[in-house]
């Protein structure tokens, strides 16, 4: 967290679907190495926010700026197609809740990881395969499975493969949408541990959308609580969860089941 300028800066993001407001006037800053959790119930607008931040859907109002690798902060709306593609293919990662959306299910695991490298210009088959194998190790997928397609993987393995595919290009920012949703708890624990370790080691910035406050506590430095498209409360993760101020946050925090 050396650089004093934010990596990602959003101002007044608003998105309507018909008369329904999905996201109202949301602003945030994210610094290098920082993990921000966005929590809230279904329909609170957290996934919409993630899609607005990552420019997958256009905002009705507001702006998103990003500090590019050359150190210049740019309004993403002003980027050309090539620059947008560069961000998506290399400097950003996007981990979907459903790995089938982030992977090519019919091609091999090795090719799934290698594809992002080739988008960067890598052409040497041997070194692409070696890098892919190395990433399978890092996400705890046996090398023997490198030629299998993710269609024959378990849910947890697919999710770990999706993470490898995203991180192989050394992105600086990763968006995650319920990365542990729909997995068994033991698989979830392993995945969380893996994400936590990788984020820490690689100094990644991340925006993690989750409805699970335990996931938020484990992964994030800061937290934003959303309800009906608006940010209700935000701050240090442990402060918001241990000393929630707003009625809605108190309700959420008090609804965590003790183990």
């Amino acid at each position, binding site marked *: *967290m050396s650089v004093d300028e934010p990596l990602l800066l959003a101002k007044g993001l608003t998105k309507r679907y018909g008369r329904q407001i999905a996201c109202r006037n949301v602003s945030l800053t994210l*610094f290098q190495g*920082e993990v921000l959790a966005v929590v809230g119930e279904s329909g609170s607008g957290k996934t919409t926010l993630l899609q607005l931040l990552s420019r997958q859907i256009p905002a009705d109002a507001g702006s998103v700026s990003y500090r590019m690798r050359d150190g210049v902060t740019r309004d993403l709306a002003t980027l050309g197609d090539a620059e947008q593609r560069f961000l998506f293919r290399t400097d950003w990662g996007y981990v979907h809740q459903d790995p089938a959306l982030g992977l090519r299910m019919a091609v091999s695991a090795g090719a799934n990881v290698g594809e992002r490298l080739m988008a960067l210009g890598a052409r040497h088959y041997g070194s692409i395969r070696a890098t892919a194998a190395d990433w399978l190790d890092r996400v705890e997928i046996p090398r023997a499975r490198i030629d299998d397609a993710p269609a024959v993987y378990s849910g947890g393995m697919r999710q770990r493969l999706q993470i490898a595919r995203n991180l192989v290009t050394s992105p600086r920012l990763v968006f995650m949408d319920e990365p542990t949703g729909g997995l068994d708890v033991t698989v979830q*624990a*392993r995945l*969380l*541990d893996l994400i*936590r370790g990788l984020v*820490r*080691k690689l100094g990644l910035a991340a925006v993690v959308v989750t409805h699970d406050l335990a996931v938020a506590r*484990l992964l994030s*430095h*800061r937290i934003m609580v959303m309800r009906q498209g608006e940010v209700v409360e935000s*701050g*240090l993760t*442990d*402060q918001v969860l*241990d*000393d929630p*101020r*707003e*009625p809605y946050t*108190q*309700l959420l925090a*008090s609804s965590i089941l003790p183990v």
Partner: protein
Amino acid sequence: MQPVLDLVGVSKTFTLHLQGGLSLPAVDDVSFAVHAGECVVLAGPSGAGKSSILKMIYGNYRCDAGRILLRHDGTTTDVARAAPRTMLRLRRTAIGYVSQFLRAVPRVAAIDVVAEAAAHQDDDLAQAEDAAACLLRRLNIAERLLKVPPATFSGGEQQRVNIARGFLPDMPVLLLDEPTASLDAANRAVVVDLIAEKKRQGTAIVAVVHDDDVRTTIADTVVDITPHARRAA
């Protein structure tokens, strides 16, 4: 010499919205200062807000009124108003905290739970692990437990992992919330030694301790934080 930590008129009230907005005063107008190498022990009955004060200094609880001034690296920060990012930096560089209970992360070995507190870059992790192992041994954690996640440890073992985690990094301020509560006499003595070493190094310590012997041994100053209202009554 200026104090490292200076609390001025610190107050906190919990408002419980789910209980019809019930207002619970936790801390009322508390002021004290802690100098380098000094150990201040907070005294007061259970529920007086001793732990809440430690949590406010650490930024875990919000502070409603008053100032919590921390002098570090030539600048003074009011922790009560610090931005989250500032608070995170202070936790990495200035404020150590031994909470009452260890919040164990699944699948992380005891030695790494401790080492992570001192290593912020991957490359010094190995060094931090050596230091962590040393400290855990000193706190009588069995060798075979070092590589085991602490979730299955006894209460006393977990607390010793927590103590090692708080004591390993060299921080100018150290907050201790009942560090000896679940320890036997031998381990209590180790912790008392560790506290004495920190004081010699110039660490400013704020502690909550119920054990009278420990308190008399470590305290340079005792601050009574019994709420004014109750004190008057």
